[in-house]
């Protein structure tokens, strides 16, 4: 029976299948949405088919790129996968690899994220291909991505040039029925041919390499003209009033929309699978036959800019399609529909969903913003850091913990590793003015391995002094639980070498290092304060804290064995009755009272009050009772007991825990009093530390 196996695969899994089917020997990647699922699928196919493919999660994209590239110098086939901003990190080796070229085939998968859904930018990797002068394939769906990959490897080997595959999120994260093709057996034994003139070319020789590269690109463009599997015309009908040039996901949408509007026989589509170098001959011949051309491509006008005569073109350059955000089917429908009306092509009227949207508008549906999980150790860390230094500056980084911004403990998030460099730059900018303020940078363990160390080395070398808190949950949580070097488990599950963050930090020249448990909030606050004192010392320097606790998603079962069940008291003992909610109505005996005689004028109360209800006037402090919510944080934090306030021992609905702790399991209930959502509570017990009115208590 020659029945071919079929399966529903995610786009990224189809890409992995294509890579495996091409007989690829070497694969490296760094996780990042929407690319993260490629490597695990490679590992799966490798195991299922007993292959000896080398697979690694690399430390970062540049490292992945270079590792894989050099494997091609030995004649092997190699591939590397990353998200689009990861390609920025790998841009240096990419640029040079275009000049020097490859021996074995080299495929770079760079997954774009128009929207963006999970990235800093909407950048179009096809521009990166054009910039580096390497060919790029733009798949329209998972099936086509799988089909393109063996062609890309062949092209790469024929012209000795790296090739980019650029799926957008809608391809990477689409699921489709995929037919499994046989896995090619490509026998290659590693053989590195010494050729210093090429592999370590001097600038003079680079000029000739550039010339060679230009010739390669010209030849490839010509060859693309005749590759009808990639570049072809659909509904070719000679002359047409309106034609569409579509690439990648733009083609998938164009097909659907024409079908839906009943126009599939009226409007020809030139499908471009290789937007760079552009197969100019067939593009110009197609334009010649049409009076007007609509260009549908995601995300930037890469094809549009390459067409010399733009007089017939409609697309992004003339503003017909929006120049930011994801291209949506309804936008494409509207644009095609409007153009048909304009060019007298009969088209059915568009159905508006506006009346439906009006029907729900009055309910005021609130946006669902993401938040850290119940029991997340990062929440505890952020709470402690903010509590230690409410007026600090908090540069942070990329990962789940960026959500610390909701806890007012993340001030910046820029690119991988920027927490460390931003903190360093901020320190120097303030220090220049003779001012030293608490700067507390947070970075995840995987991000620290990725690109935290260069910034730390630089900070130590140049004498920056700030606190770096490494949030170590021992996993790459955001992108789906990939292992970090600390775990010592490699990509295909084999034991590797476990790397110690402590050793790494010490190796960067840091003299002050403490490992803390964020689940011990009090201890972490204490350690943060001590670390800051060290940075202030004349002979002090960088202080590093490692806040170590496993990702709660992996730790939930542990909490089931040793749960810390908490509840919130609503009626204070003995028979006081419920206090009124807002302090305006609260009896004066329950309000904070300031005593000037014991005050040491340290400003702690001003800094700690979450409502900015306390101000300094000369030598004393004024409490604005119209702003006070009764959270009691001032009384709790005052080092000399100069603020007096009774502990009520029950929830008064001040909202402090909701605002500063933001646990999804602490829910605002009746009369603003907080209750625990047992559906999501993981019994971590962290909130016990939060309420200064001592309303939250542990149940036996």
């Amino acid at each position: 029976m020659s029945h071919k196996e079929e399966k529903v695969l995610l786009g990224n899994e189809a890409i992995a299948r294509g890579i495996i089917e091409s007989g690829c020997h070497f694969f490296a990647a760094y996780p990042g949405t929407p690319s993260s699922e490629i490597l695990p699928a490679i590992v799966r196919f490798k195991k299922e088919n007993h292959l000896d493919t080398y697979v690694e999660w690399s430390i970062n994209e540049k490292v992945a790129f270079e590792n894989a590239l050099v494997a091609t110098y030995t004649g092997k086939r190699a591939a590397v996968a990353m998200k689009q901003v990861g390609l920025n990190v790998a841009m240096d080796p990419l640029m040079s690899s275009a000049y020097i070229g490859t021996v074995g085939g080299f495929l770079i998968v760079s997954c774009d994220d128009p929207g963006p859904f999970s990235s800093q930018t909407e950048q179009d990797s096809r521009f990166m291909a054009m910039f580096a002068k390497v060919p790029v394939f733009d798949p329209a769906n998972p099936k086509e991505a799988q089909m393109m990959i063996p062609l890309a490897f062949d092209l790469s080997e024929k012209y000795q040039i790296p090739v980019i595959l650029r799926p957008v999120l809608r391809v990477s994260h689409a699921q489709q029925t995929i037919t499994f093709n046989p896995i090619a057996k490509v026998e290659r034994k590693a053989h590195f041919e010494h050729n210093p003139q090429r592999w370590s070319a001097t600038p003079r020789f680079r000029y000739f390499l550039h010339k060679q590269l230009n010739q390669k690109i010209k030849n490839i463009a010509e060859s693309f003209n005749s590759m009808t599997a990639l570049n072809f015309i659909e509904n070719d009908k000679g002359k047409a009033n309106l034609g569409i040039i579509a690439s990648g996901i733009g083609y998938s949408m164009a097909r659907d929309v024409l079908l839906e509007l009943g126009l599939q026989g009226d409007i020809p589509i030139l499908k471009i699978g290789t937007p760079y170098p552009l197969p100019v001959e067939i593009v110009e011949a197609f334009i010649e036959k049409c009076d007007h051309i609509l260009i549908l491509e995601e995300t930037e006008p890469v094809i549009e800019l390459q067409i010399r005569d733009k007089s017939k073109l409609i697309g992004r350059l003339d503003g017909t399609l929006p120049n930011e955000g994801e291209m949506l089917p309804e936008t494409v429908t509207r644009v095609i529909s409007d153009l048909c009306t304009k060019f007298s092509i009969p088209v059915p009227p568009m159905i508006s969903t506006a009346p439906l949207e009006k029907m729900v508008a009055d309910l005021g549906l609130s946006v669902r913003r993401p938040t850290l999980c119940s029991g997340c150790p990062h929440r505890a860390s952020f709470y402690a850091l903010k509590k230690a230094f409410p007026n600090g500056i908090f540069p942070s980084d990329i990962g789940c913990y960026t959500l610390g911004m909701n806890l007012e403990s993340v001030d910046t998030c820029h690119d991988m590793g920027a927490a460390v460099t931003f903190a360093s730059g901020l320190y120097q900018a303030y220090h220049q003015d003779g001012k030293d303020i608490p700067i507390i940078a947070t970075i995840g363990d995987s991000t620290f391995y990725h690109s935290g160390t260069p910034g730390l080395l630089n900070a130590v070398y140049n004498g920056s002094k700030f606190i770096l808190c490494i949030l170590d949950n021992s996993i790459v949580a955001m992108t789906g639980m990939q292992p970090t070097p600390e775990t010592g488990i490699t990509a295909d599950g084999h034991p590797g070498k476990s790397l110690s963050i402590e050793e790494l930090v010490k190796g960067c020249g840091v003299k002050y290092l403490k490992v803390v448990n964020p689940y011990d909030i009090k201890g972490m606050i204490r350690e943060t304060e001590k670390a800051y004192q060290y940075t202030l010392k004349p002979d002090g320097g960088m202080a590093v804290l490692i806040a170590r606790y496993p990702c709660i998603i992996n730790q939930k079962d542990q909490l089931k064995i040793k749960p810390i069940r908490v509840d919130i008291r609503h009626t204070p003992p003995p028979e006081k009755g419920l206090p009124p909610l807002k302090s305006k109505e609260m009896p004066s005996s329950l309000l904070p009272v300031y005593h000037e005689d014991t005050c040491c004028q340290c400003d702690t109360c001003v800094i700690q009050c979450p409502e900015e209800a306390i101000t300094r006037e000369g030598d004393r402090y004024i409490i604005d009772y119209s702003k006070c919510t009764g959270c009691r944080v001032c009384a709790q934090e005052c080092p000399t007991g100069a603020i007096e306030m009774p502990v009520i021992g029950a929830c008064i609905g001040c909202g402090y825990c909701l605002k500063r702790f933001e646990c999804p399991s602490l829910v605002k209930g009746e009369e603003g009093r907080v209750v625990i959502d047992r559906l999501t509570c993981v019994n971590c017990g962290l909130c016990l530390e939060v309420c200064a009115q001592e309303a939250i208590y542990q149940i036996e």
Partner: protein
Amino acid sequence: MFDLKDPFNVIIGGVGGQGNVLASRILGEILIGQGYVITIGETYGASQRGGSVMSHLRISKKEPFSPLIPQGQCDLLIALEPVEALRILAPYGKPDVLTLLNTRPIHPIDVISGDATYPEVSKVIAKVEQLSLRVWVLNATEIALEMGDPIFSNIVMLGALSTIQVLPVERQAFEEVARDLLPSRSLMENLRAFDRGREMVKEIPSKKVPLA
């Protein structure tokens, strides 16, 4: 035999962590077993930590479609959360859209912290009724909780789907796919969740408002 519109567009909507993606994958595999060509598009990313999530399933006898359903083209909505149902029905609905609804709300973080309010659930359901040609409801989360873990809600919903005669989803086919996609130690519980969904779902009369 089911005579489905082609393509038949299904949206599964909910909140990150409710098992949207797994539900769409199981449903997709079941339908492929019936000879359909399936394309599924997911909308997730940073949203997985408590944000809105949506899966688009495009079911055809003939060819693969692009992964996003255009607005106004949803044929069946499987909503794992009431407010998410409205959020999707407004832009994606149409006069003859069908809705299968889990009535248990999940409050967004802004509601939890008191910066926003969650509309009354009865009002939300009433709107769903107005926006849909037919509506089936069940409290899938409650049922899953009774079984010991809210994680089963998505499977309870698939069980409900198998009885409403909209898509060809049979228990037998579910079992086969579940054996393939779900951890074997929880197979029995998942089958029980599926059966509970079959028992508990009920149709409520539509209050469809004709659009002007």
